[in-house]
């Protein structure tokens, strides 16, 4: 506790970096996963390669990715861009299937009605299909958020600072306080992400609660 109170500034600084490294890829990953998920749903031949391919990405060991990416991207090993790119890849890996499933869960009646009313594909996607897929996509995002917060900490091993640095620090000094602090801070951060996603989802989906009101 003493350690925590005396290092409040450090913990705060690392938390902000951690939130940045885990959160930005969540948004970028969503933006990339949306068209890929749509493709997988739109063309049945595209579904297996996209779903299996992106699924495999998630099995890449994170440490290996952090070490190999600078070579591929021609960046410095300590450049946070490496972490952002890696985390975006993991987010995409988790979300493509979610987006495809979310779009696939839209009732046939609704899609049919949209076509019959003269929707063209893009407008139908944005105006009808995506809004209806929000609950499913949001569930996937919550999983990806927790996963990102956890995987980002591994980057401490290659020296990119964030909450994971507390683990390496504590390990090197055989000192538990920073490790416990890091675990708790990661937990709080995950919880915060979750709350933000849940609140935004609620704002976007008033109709899902209408049943109870009737």
């Amino acid at each position: 506790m003493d350690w925590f109170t005396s290092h409040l500034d450090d913990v705060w600084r690392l938390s902000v970096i951690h939130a940045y490294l885990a959160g930005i890829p969540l948004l970028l990953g969503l933006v990339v996963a949306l068209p890929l998920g749509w493709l997988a749903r739109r063309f049945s031949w595209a579904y297996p390669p996209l779903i299996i391919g992106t699924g495999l990405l998630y099995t890449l060991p994170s440490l290996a990715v952090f070490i190999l990416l600078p070579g591929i991207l021609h960046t410095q090993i300590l450049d946070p861009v490496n972490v952002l790119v890696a985390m975006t890849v993991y987010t995409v890996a988790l979300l493509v299937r979610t987006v495809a499933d979310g779009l696939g869960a839209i009732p046939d009646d609704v899609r049919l009605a949209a076509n019959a009313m003269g929707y063209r594909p893009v407008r139908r996607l944005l105006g009808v299909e995506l809004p209806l897929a929000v609950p499913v996509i949001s569930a996937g995002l919550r999983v990806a958020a927790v996963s990102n917060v956890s995987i980002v900490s591994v980057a401490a091993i290659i020296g990119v600072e964030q909450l994971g640095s507390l683990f390496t620090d504590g390990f090197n000094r055989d000192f538990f306080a920073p490790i416990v602090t890091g675990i708790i801070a990661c937990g709080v951060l995950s919880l915060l992400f979750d709350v933000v996603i849940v609140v935004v989802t609620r704002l976007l989906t008033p109709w899902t609660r209408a049943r109870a009101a009737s």
Partner: protein
Amino acid sequence: MIRFESVTKEFPDGTVAVDALSLTAPTGKITVLVGPSGCGKTTSLRMINRMIEPTGGRILIDDRDTSTIDAAELRRGIGYVIQHAGLFPHRTILANITTVPLLLGWDKARATSHALELMDRVGLPQSFAKRYPSQLSGGQQQRVGVARALAADPPVMLMDEPFSAVDPIVREQLQDEFLRLQEEIGTTIVFVTHDIDEAIKLGDQVAVLRVGGRLAQLAAPEELLSRPVDDFVADFVGRDRGYRTLGFRTAPFPTSSEPTVRLGASAADARGVTDDPWVLVLDDDDHPVGWVERERLDGTVTRDALHRGGTVASTDGPLRQALDAALSAPSGRGVIVGPDGVFVGTVRARDLIEPIEASAARERAASSADASGDEAGEGAGEGIVVAEPKAL
């Protein structure tokens, strides 16, 4: 006017869903496509707005070949109602109804005020505007479906079994309202159902399709009942055809005067007007309210004492209604009112037989004149028939 010219649909798997279908759906009328499951009704309907493309022949709307019109544009001008309404769950009722007007670029205020007006027309309280579809019953959702289809005032509306999924009482209500609405707005409607009674009730003309997507008969409902062209149509149309045609025939029939009492009269007054065991009761506006049994009366004649079984027929209504009134009256005398609902007299079943026979004879004479007359004459401009001989 919608014209099918020898339209065929063969699906890629070789299924011929519609086979050389030719028919015309006249402007402002209800054309019903009816037939057993899988006979190609839905396929025919969806070819009109190009949700399915024909593989042969063409479809014209007001003489424009639909294949030359951009599909999305075409659809925005055609209302479409499906079985489970297919409302957008994430949009309020109001937003559902304004969908097509907004796609067409109407300004929001105009779309909204028009939508509210339509909610009125289809019998939805305006307080529903901000609700979501899941908060409405099936019947209410179907009304929204109809309002949504009509929201941009399309000249044409397609309906695919719109009332099949609601319970029978609501269905009947929706059908009656639908007929009233159609009378007001005069939209050209193609209506699909597998229910022959619904077809006969709603159709200005009815096209019976057989499996394989071939037109078996296209006729006015009455003609379908009285002159089915073959065993398939006769079977499909079902029992009691002769009796059911009476639902379409009107003819003058004689009525007899009937002693009556008013609501609130004393039992003694009621016994005084007649020796018959049953006495007819009128309200202060001379509208019949029911029969009372002379023997059972005491005190005054109240609504509670009325027999509830009898139906009432109108002098200008179909003969079936008059016959039903006679058969359902506890006295055996059917209660007849004028078009204004004012009591005119009563009629016995036996007095209806002669008018019924006479009307049947007139019908037979008219149809044999038709048949022997100018066969090619296109049914007095009603846009009828023309089943194309299938080329071999």
